[in-house]
């Protein structure tokens, strides 16, 4: 997948970097002082870079953990997110990443040790991965779980959320299930997946993956966030929820979150450059420095009512 590697001087001898170079066919290496020299370059074209992407191998520098407001929690009091990668191989047309980042290159922070130390220092809390890129999509390359699952197994006061739109389950069969890990799938009806969540696993594949890890004893989460307004929304969502919950064993369901499409207004201009996002933007209005659906309340109220048929109230969280 990658043959062009930008490598920070600080990590050039890191074992993960060496592994990348050993596995790549004819790797092309360009050294840099700081990943931002490449990732934050002026006048980059996100769409053009998607065609010729590259991997930047970098050192994560403090802060390693970022606090998340309680309103976005799944029942925990202290919530933090962390990023082992920036950017995502998936191409969701509504994703804020294409508004947030100028570059479509991937950044992999290879020094997991420091992030794990920061989590250990916190002792307890909920720790969310998958904010700056799908947690599992690049797992065969990043081997994030190979390090993080054993760590969380030894630190049961801390809870790890892995969030994904992939159907990659291999690590969960190589490791015994742990109570303090939630594998959360972001889900949307298949017509949305096909049209707007390019390169992600189909709904059916995600549901089969979800069932497989659940059967093995892992806790799962369902993330209906963002829900996307579309023709036939009410009928389609009703059928969609029914299908999803036919795969779910309630005792292993950790939490369900519900949220509608929203985007910080500041990202609008960058996203407008990406032609394919415009249809989403056209359906939204500006509200309190964010772009949101005009019918947001109505859409969410309907979904909440439907979800209450399947989910106990204490497991349902609205964003």
């Amino acid at each position, binding site marked *: 997948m990658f043959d062009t590697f*930008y490598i920070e001087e600080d990590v050039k001898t890191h074992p993960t970097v060496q592994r990348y170079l050993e596995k790549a066919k004819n790797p092309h290496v360009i050294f840099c002082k700081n990943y931002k020299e490449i990732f934050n370059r002026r*006048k980059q074209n996100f769409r053009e870079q998607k065609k010729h992407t590259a991997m930047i191998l970098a050192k994560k520098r403090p802060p390693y953990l970022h606090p998340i407001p309680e309103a976005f929690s799944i029942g925990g009091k202290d919530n933090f997110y962390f990023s082992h990668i920036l950017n995502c191989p998936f191409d969701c047309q509504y994703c804020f990443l294409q508004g947030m980042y100028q570059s479509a290159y991937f950044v992999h922070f290879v020094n997991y040790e420091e992030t794990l130390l920061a989590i250990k220092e916190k002792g307890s809390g909920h720790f969310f991965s998958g904010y700056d890129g799908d947690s599992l999509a690049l797992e065969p390359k990043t081997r994030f779980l190979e390090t993080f699952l054993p760590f969380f197994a030894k630190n049961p006061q801390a809870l790890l959320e892995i969030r994904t739109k992939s159907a990659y389950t291999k690590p969960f069969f190589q490791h015994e299930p742990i109570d303090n890990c939630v594998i959360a799938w972001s889900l949307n009806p298949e017509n949305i997946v096909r049209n707007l969540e390019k390169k992600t696993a189909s709904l059916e594949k995600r549901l089969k993956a979800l069932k497989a890890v659940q059967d093995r004893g892992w806790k799962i989460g369902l993330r209906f966030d963002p829900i996307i307004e579309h023709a036939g929304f009410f009928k389609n969502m009703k059928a969609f929820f029914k299908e999803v919950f036919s795969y779910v064993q309630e005792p292993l369901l950790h939490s369900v979150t519900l949220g509608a499409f929203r985007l910080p207004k500041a990202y609008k201009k960058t996203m407008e450059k990406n032609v394919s996002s415009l249809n989403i933007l056209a359906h939204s209005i500006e509200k309190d420095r964010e772009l949101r659906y005009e019918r947001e309340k109505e859409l969410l109220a309907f979904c909440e009512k439907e979800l209450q048929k399947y989910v106990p109230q204490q497991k349902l969280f609205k964003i």
Partner: protein
Amino acid sequence: MLFLSIAFPLEAKPFIRHFSLQKEEKTFFPLYKNEQIVLGVTGCGQNKAAAAFGYVAALYPIKIAVNIGYAGHAIEKSGALFSINKILGEPSFYPHRRKDFSLDPSTSLQTVEKMEKTFADLCLYDMEAQGFFSAAMSFLPLEKIFLWKIVSDGPNDPFVPTSKWIEKSLEKLAGYINKLTSEMKKEKNEPFLPNLHFSSYQKHRLQRLLSLAEGSDLDFSSIKAPNASTYLDALEKTLRDTLPNYV
């Protein structure tokens, strides 16, 4: 247009001949062009390369820019061809690397004021790249700027004015230039546009809507509207009502 920025006439001649470029009259420095390409013989040094870019960009709608020329290297043999992936400096620049241009090995480069004699580092040395790239970045997206260099001299191999090293790589370089110009043409082709004035935002929205309808047999010409905004709303409604997978 594609701008070929080249410092010296002897480096430029093979391209002028190959692409049948015609000399422009009354320009501040020699310019040669055809329908797709404008080649400037900019003179030596990064200031001249930068100034030339500004001048050409003011005259022509430049969409892609390529700097081609000779460079020195401590150990590489004369005639070796490189694409530039890093221009060393404070700050360094990192031109975009395209996988389909097999100009490997690509390498780093230092732009110097005078012809390099010591070749202390294992990189290419030229006299224009940094000026060219800085100026190009003011006009173009990063992904539309390319630097291709051919080794012409080294510590034991003094520079000799000749076109032969360019001639050696001409076929390959001309192939890449043709590829870039054909991509430029494709990007230029507007999709179906009704006879209305579309702002650039509305053009994007139109492209998006039309791409959703690809493969369908919808007849867009039947949609009548007094202005672009109404037209787009009508088109969107048609798609919403007609396409089963419309989102």
